[in-house]
């Protein structure tokens, strides 16, 4: 991959890491006048192993769960200095740091109305510590702490509805995106930073190691998630659904069979049906079906 001055190559991400691509899209869209606060997790680890850094913008990592609060302090300081108008503040982290342990800090940031874009890189498990389930792990996923077995077909709960939780704070912009559609990420980031106030973007980022697919399958797997309705892409502006990626829905089985984390489902039509129901529900709820 060619070098970018804002997100330099040479970091230590795994081959085919969706988060690395998404993070690069985000910062390139936001531009050089941006300060980032980053939670602990894969992205933080693979971009900033002392004495190297991949970041060409001011960047800070404090702890696992507090990027939203650290960013709140940065934003407050910029306001005090009279510099907020010209500088974007981004808080970012993985799904575990966002939806579980950092949810309180994020909720505080959203509720207080800070002018910050929060980006959640959703690889659907605690990857940095070895693929444990998080609140954003999908239903029936095999992870190291939600293993499938004779009494279980994996993670027992569907994904926590984080975009809706963000939305419920009454913030001006909420969107989902996918590493499979990099330009769409950039468009959404640009729109988000043009809006004052708290914004939330959640990006689906395949993890070849955790999801168990070939490293060259990152883009197709990400796209399949969107195309089957399991990862609906949408935008809410001021609480109103203003856009969604229309799809000609593919069966979820195509998506499931591409990944080892769902292998245990493949001979289990009953479970696949449950997953299909989740996708169908998304398709209805967000009106995803393209007109014939």
């Amino acid at each position, binding site marked *: 991959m060619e070098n970018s001055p804002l997100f330099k190559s040479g970091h230590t991400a795994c081959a085919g890491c969706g988060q690395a691509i998404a993070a690069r899209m985000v910062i390139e869209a936001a531009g*050089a006048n941006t300060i980032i606060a980053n939670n602990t997790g894969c992205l933080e*680890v693979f971009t900033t192993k002392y004495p190297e850094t991949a970041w060409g913008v001011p960047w*800070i990592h404090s*702890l696992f769960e507090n990027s939203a609060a650290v960013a709140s*302090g940065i934003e*407050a300081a910029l306001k005090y200095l009279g510099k907020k108008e010209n500088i974007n503040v981004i808080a970012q982290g993985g799904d575990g740091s966002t939806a579980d342990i950092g949810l309180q800090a994020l909720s505080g940031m959203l509720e207080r109305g800070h002018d910050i874009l929060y980006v959640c890189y959703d690889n659907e498990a605690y990857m940095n510590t070895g693929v444990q389930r998080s609140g954003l792990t999908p239903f029936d996923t095999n992870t190291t702490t939600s293993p499938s077995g004779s009494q279980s077909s994996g993670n027992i709960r569907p994904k926590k509805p984080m975009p809706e939780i963000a939305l419920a704070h009454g913030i001006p912009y909420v969107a989902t995106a996918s590493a499979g559609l990099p330009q769409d990420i950039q468009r959404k980031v640009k729109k988000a930073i043009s809006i004052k106030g708290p914004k939330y973007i959640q990006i689906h980022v395949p993890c070849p190691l955790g999801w168990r697919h070939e490293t060259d399958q990152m883009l197709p797997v990400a796209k399949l998630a969107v195309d089957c309705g399991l990862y609906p892409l949408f935008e809410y502006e001021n609480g109103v659904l203003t856009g969604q990626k229309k799809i000609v829905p593919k069966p979820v089985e195509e998506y499931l069979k591409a990944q080892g984390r769902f292998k245990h489902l493949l001979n289990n039509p009953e479970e696949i049906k449950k997953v299909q129901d989740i996708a169908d529900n998304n398709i209805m709820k967000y009106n995803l079906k393209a007109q014939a």
Partner: protein
Amino acid sequence: MKEFLEGSHAIAEVIKSCKPGVISAYPITPQTHIVEDLAQMVSDGQLKSQFVNVESEHSAASVVLGGSATGVRVYTATSSQGLFYMQEVVFNIAGMRLPVVMTCANRAISAPINIWNDQQDSISLRDAGWFQVYAENNQEAVDFHLIGYRLAEDKRVMLPVMVCMDGFILTHGMEAVDMPEQEKVDKFLPRYNPLYKLDPAQPVSMGLLADPDYYMETRFAIQETMKESLGYLSDISREFNSVFGRDYKDLLVEEYQLKDAEKVIVAMGSVCGTIKEAVDEQRAKGKKVGLLRIITYRPFPYARVCEALKNAAKVAVLDKAVSLGAYAPIAVEVKAAFYGKKQGPKMISSFVAGLGGRDITLETVHEIFRRLSTKEVNSDFVDLKPELLKEEYGE
């Protein structure tokens, strides 16, 4: 100018004069009055800070971390459970060498839940890499915040400062305090000019992963700075005296009636006021007793303690905290200070008193001096109620 003020209000006033750019606030008794007063000052336009009402102490500490990393002076305050809730951020702030100043209104730790004063909260975070200074009265509490910012922001230091003041006793106590005038504050405490900050004009990365090849040196560097800072504290207090007309010696310890003292109590914080009274009473009767007050607990002033106590025959260390299952926190330090030394007290006894707000009276202090006559004791609890202990065990 002397004003008769509630401790918390005096702290809010001095913080106002330090002009922090970012203040974060979360309620916990007995700290709350401080941030309430600051909120009013911001609301009235007397203070131009960004006032961030956070959703937890974890975020209170994280907000000042972010603000400080962006290059502005910051302030927050907490107590007890709040301090514990922010613990990992507290360590993180020091590791990142950010000059945060925070007030800890000292309060006991749950369970059982108890809002009254002891020093278990801040003492439990003694290893965090923060300076910890303990005020005896509200004048000191006020002054220590000014000195705290000066020390924290000193380029040779760049470490956070926790100003500890006993909850209720000081925070809610009314005292006459000589409030520092703004011109003098501005002279003593110049605008914060960070070494490095989050700024797109000069991008830096902060908070990197340090593997075994790099981690240890970062801790060593703080340890060295802490040691050197004992000297800086003396310098800064001298300068403080000259600007504000005070009389602080070195801000490490205070020696009270130590010259010919045979029995000495070592203690920290507001209880030293009572101990001084007890010392005066005994001195009036011709008893050679004294007090060594620890002001700076981190870094611990070992050399000064040895120097001050070298001629005392018997020392009683009074802790308002415990290290359950081990020697009490201040006692450990005093004993360690004399390890291997030729000259020093024959006896260092350790007493625990005042936990969860139990009054330490003049009689308590006299009792400690009495118990110091016999054999050496460790973590000897004073003023226990035997009848409650009986009930507990159903005897």
